[in-house]
């Protein structure tokens, strides 16, 4: 983090950007400017849970959940205000039917190639190549940017986990934006 806690100052004065961008100060400043109450970032200091992969990837069925706001044409699109719904995307979907909607990133690339936030073609290719054993029959998408971490922990995360268990995946790839 920059010495004064703002992302702007970090790269001011013609300095060359070095290292990864710090988003926490940037987003905090944006929320303050919009007049929202301070966002409480989730900070977990404990050791995360751990489930080891039981077999090689070439024998695994992979699931995917992505928060880039992808939907299939014909589905109800996401909205921009704490949308905790998710969409089920069949993994044999025609990529041309995928759409992107989101309030927090530049959608222009995702709308011409959804693989930048929802790597459907990439994963299907990795199955054809034998790198992965297979894919779940459905993937999941949602919005992210949900203000209440409690609603994610108590609602969205358990519902998604329940689906992933039903789908019998051996591992899951998670793609935020």
């Amino acid at each position, binding site marked *: 983090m920059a010495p004064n806690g703002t992302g702007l100052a970090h790269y001011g004065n013609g300095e060359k*950007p070095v290292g990864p961008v710090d988003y926490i100060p940037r987003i905090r400043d944006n929320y303050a400017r919009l007049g929202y109450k301070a966002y409480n970032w989730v900070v977990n200091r404990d050791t995360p849970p751990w489930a080891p992969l039981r077999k090689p990837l070439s024998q695994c069925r992979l699931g995917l959940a992505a928060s880039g706001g992808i939907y299939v044409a014909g589905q109800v699109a996401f909205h921009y205000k704490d949308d905790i719904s998710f969409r089920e995307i069949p993994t044999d979907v025609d990529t041309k039917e995928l759409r992107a909607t989101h309030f927090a990133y530049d959608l222009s690339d995702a709308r011409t190639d959804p693989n930048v936030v929802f790597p459907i073609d990439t994963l299907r290719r990795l199955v054809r190549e034998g790198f992965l054993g297979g894919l779940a029959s459905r993937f999941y998408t949602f919005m992210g940017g949900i203000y209440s971490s409690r609603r994610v922990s108590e609602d969205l995360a358990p519902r998604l986990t329940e689906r992933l268990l039903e789908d019998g995946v051996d591992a899951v790839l998670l793609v935020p934006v």
Partner: protein
Amino acid sequence: MGLVARHAEAAGIPTLCMTSARDITRAVNPPRAAFLDFPLGHTTGKPHEPDLQRRILVEALSSFGTMTAPGSMKELPFRWSEDEEWKAKAFAEGDDRTPRHDTPQYQNEEDRRRAEQGNSPSCPICRS
């Protein structure tokens, strides 16, 4: 997304979280993460570069076999551009967020028409 990762992992499903926001992911501390230092909206690659997209996912997914410590983050060996000017731009642009309406935000009007007609694929909405 880190919260979803932790929840799924606690239920016995191994997870890998891609990320382009290293500080946010470090704070949430998911079981496994792979950091791609690209602008937001490109968590799994550049558009129309399927070979690069493939290399990124192969590098990332390999973490399932190599990571042994909960909370590990792999830094993926790809750069968006030589000069990294996009990072300065990410800050100079300031607030680029669109208003937070609570009605569906369609990519185009044809999508709205199709959704409102209700001839959508299976399970269009999975609400609580």
